[in-house]
């Protein structure tokens, strides 16, 4: 029997009728199996051994098999930065190895899932594909992997997604790009790592693990359960949950101390006029209709209306314009000016939720800048330089969190941010660390008075408080 990888599946040439996991394909008159059965098929034929991965004739083969499917190389990698794994990270890795290097690990957000991924890549010793839900996360993995393994690989870390299409022995991608291209590359990786693996259970994404032959699989997540209960499907494709660390066990351990200082700015009279005009259009529309805009359902109703009611559409645009005016108020730049003066010797990260604003600031104050548009490559370089001290300041419109790649800063300045509770808490927790000889790290939040921002900021801090309480 000859195993061949074909467009995300395995064609089993000259297979006996007893072959498991396979279906007869009358289109080509051969047996065909899903690619993820690769290891099970080798195992069935007596050709799978865990340690040297090459069974020998002395073991006796149950079935003769020619493996023309495997196109992934062995890799001997050691993370460049020898960080001692924390106890639970070591325990998670051990548990994964004990489960034949298949399965998912549940670790709380911010507990070093990426680090565990690095350990797994070094341990499995084969080429690896890392799949993440967002381009942000993909970029963070890229930076981390480049730091850890960059010098040991002949090629760069591959990037598939966000406009790049480079495949390397270690490659990062997003769920969307992986779904689109996995049938082409499903034979090239021996280890599949899925970050935020609970996303994988979606009907479409499930085909990512199905269409790869990778005999080793690691799922990482903080929240394995899904509302729809589909996590059961993950077990078949990725292996069982092999390790779980509860949130409570880690709480407080890595959250650094910081002090929040809120600063207010006014709109200029021109900005105020425009803001009030736009806000009024929005307000009038909301007030003249029967839904509560502050509730999730009410907001959904509003959005629905904007697709068929021209006034609703205008109201939505008005809301967006008003928000933008508040977010990018020119006086924020004056305040930023003062803060940069005060902290010119510190390590400062400036956040904005708006790409254009980040570039304006970058030009004005000559700060290195990272946005969603920044190449993965340049992003990694800028963060490297920030880590090494070559750069001491950074402007970004991206969420830098959930990873070990983000270098510490002792001053954070939020010019505008998203109201998402979780995002905000993570931003703070991950990035701010007090420097050796200084007082606690500082977080400045610059908000525009008498605008929607005042409300958002309040909600945001409530969010931090409640998640810290839990």
């Amino acid at each position, binding site marked *: 029997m000859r195993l061949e990888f*074909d*467009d*995300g*599946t395995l064609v089993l040439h000259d297979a006996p009728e007893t072959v498991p996991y396979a*279906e007869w*394909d*009358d*289109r*080509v*008159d051969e047996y*065909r199996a*899903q690619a993820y059965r690769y290891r099970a098929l080798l195992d069935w034929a007596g050709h799978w051994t865990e340690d040297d991965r090459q069974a020998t004739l002395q073991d006796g083969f149950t079935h003769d098999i020619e493996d023309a499917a495997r196109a992934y190389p062995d890799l001997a990698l050691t993370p460049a930065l020898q960080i001692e794994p924390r106890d639970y990270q070591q325990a998670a890795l051990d548990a994964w190895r004990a489960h034949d290097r298949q399965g998912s690990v549940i670790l709380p957000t911010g507990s070093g899932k990426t680090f565990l991924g690095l350990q797994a890549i070094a341990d499995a010793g084969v080429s690896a594909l890392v799949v993440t839900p967002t381009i942000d996360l993909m970029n963070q993995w890229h930076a981390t992997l480049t730091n850890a393994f960059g010098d040991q690989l002949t090629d760069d870390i591959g990037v598939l997604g966000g406009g790049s299409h480079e495949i390397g022995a270690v490659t990062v991608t997003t769920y969307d790009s992986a*779904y*689109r291209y996995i*049938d082409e590359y499903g034979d090239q990786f021996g280890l599949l790592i899925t970050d935020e693996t609970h996303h994988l259970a*979606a*009907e*479409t994404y499930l*085909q990512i693990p*199905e*269409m790869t032959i990778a005999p080793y699989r690691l799922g990482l997540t903080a929240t394995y359960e899904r509302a729809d209960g589909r996590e059961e499907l993950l077990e078949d494709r990725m292996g069982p949950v092999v390790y779980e660390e509860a949130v409570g066990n880690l709480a407080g351990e890595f959250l650094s101390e910081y002090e929040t200082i809120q600063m207010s700015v006014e709109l200029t009279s021109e900005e105020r006029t425009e803001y009030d005009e736009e806000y009024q259009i929005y307000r009038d529309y909301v007030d003249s209709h029967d839904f509560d805009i502050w509730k999730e359902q009410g907001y959904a109703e509003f959005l629905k209306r*904007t*697709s*068929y*009611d*021209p*006034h*609703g*559409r*205008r109201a939505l*645009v008005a809301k967006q314009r008003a928000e933008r005016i508040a977010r990018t108020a020119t006086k924020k*730049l*004056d305040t930023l*000016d*003062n803060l*940069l*003066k005060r902290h*010119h010797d510190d390590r400062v990260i400036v956040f904005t939720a708006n790409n254009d604003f980040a*570039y304006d600031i*970058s*030009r*004005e*104050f*000559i*700060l*290195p800048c990272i946005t969603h*548009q920044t190449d993965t490559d*340049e992003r990694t370089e800028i963060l490297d*330089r920030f880590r090494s001290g*070559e*750069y*001491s*300041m950074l402007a970004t419109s991206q969420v830098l969190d959930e990873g070990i790649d983000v270098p510490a800063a002792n001053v954070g300045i939020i010019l505008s941010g998203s109201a998402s509770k979780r995002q905000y808490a993570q931003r703070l927790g991950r990035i701010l660390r007090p420097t050796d000889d200084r007082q606690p790290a500082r977080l400045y939040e610059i908000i525009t008075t008498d605008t929607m921002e005042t409300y958002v900021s309040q909600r945001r801090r409530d969010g931090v408080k409640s998640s810290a309480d839990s």
Partner: protein
Amino acid sequence: MSDEQYRETAATLIDLFETHLGEPKGDLEAAIDELTVDDTDYKIVQGLAKLLTDECEFEQQAAVDPREIRQRLFERANDRYPIVRQPTLGEDTQKLEVYSAVADELGISLEACYRGMYADLDHNKRLVRFGEQTVDGYDEDASDTSTTKLTGNSKQAYDQTEQTVDWLLARYNLALAQAVLYDASEMRIRVWDHFGTVFSYVKLFGLMHRIYPIDADGTRVDSTDDAAGYEAELDGPASLFRKSQKYGIRMANFLPTLPLCDRWEMNAEILDDESTSNSHQFTLDHTDGLVSHYSTGQRFDSDIERTLARKWERANTEWELQREDDVFDLGDEVMIPDFAIEHPNGRRAILEIVGFWTPEYLASKLTKIRQVEADNFVLAVSERLDCAGEDFGDAADRVLWFKTGIHVYDVVELAEAYASNTEMDRS
């Protein structure tokens, strides 16, 4: 939106793109957004704009690599912080000094340095080509070869613009149908002409097929000899295991092939986003007015075929030559012989010409030929090829060897000898 409104919107957008030639992409996008402010049909505007953007080329305008400029700026700035807007004594010239020092280093002007810093950002790139209209000094060789070119020019007559509106709306209709197909799990097509074109696109887009010969009414028949057309079920390798939208993109890419046919039907199963248990049927045919922008390819693969067809027209024989009239299903591929030869009395033979090919291509062709199971399948083979009668398997006796060109009457003789009697076959 009424037809007239569609045409108006299309014309407005085309005009917008034309007037933004040479302008930054960000400005063009802002102008498009402005059209959608109190328009609930904003999705249509955005969809049309997307298709027009596909016809555009944007170019970065910088004398020096922007990344190089900013890296030097940041390196230099790092030693000079604070660089601020409201300077206290001694700090007021920092910003200017950094910019001009880097400009001098790179040998560019201060303005070029400031503007070039982020010239590679998408919204700072300039529109240099829209369809066939370009900015002055546009270097055609330096640009990528584009896909479809627009016809018409703003300086030309009104009816040219009309044509462009038609073009845009035709593409839009096709794009809408393609968008539906992204969630398709299976596509079923029926075609009655252009078989070669259809199945070469099936292969190009990586679709798998099951093929059934059909008659003029679309009813399945036993033999390709009786076929007026072909029905094909199209999906992908993993469709064997479960219904999947995975191949929807391939089906969407394939769709523009169908309007190349004079008569066609398409039916697709469309899955609901998150659950494969719910599905809808999506049906289209040649009466729906879709227009293709794909190419039908060359009518003839080789000079030998073209010459034979020309000679046949002048020859005195009742046998008629039909181009690519049969489709043999060979599992993962199809074999479409070059010609069918038909007599008014119903007799019919299938002809494949094996001309001047590379050894690799010959080997794969022979493999295909040996798989064809038809007694009326005859071949014309060049004597110059490195192959012998036994290479043709069951068809070995039905080979006509030729030196430089094929004579019509030799082929007729072969047809007389091996043609099937379709009337008889049917009984």
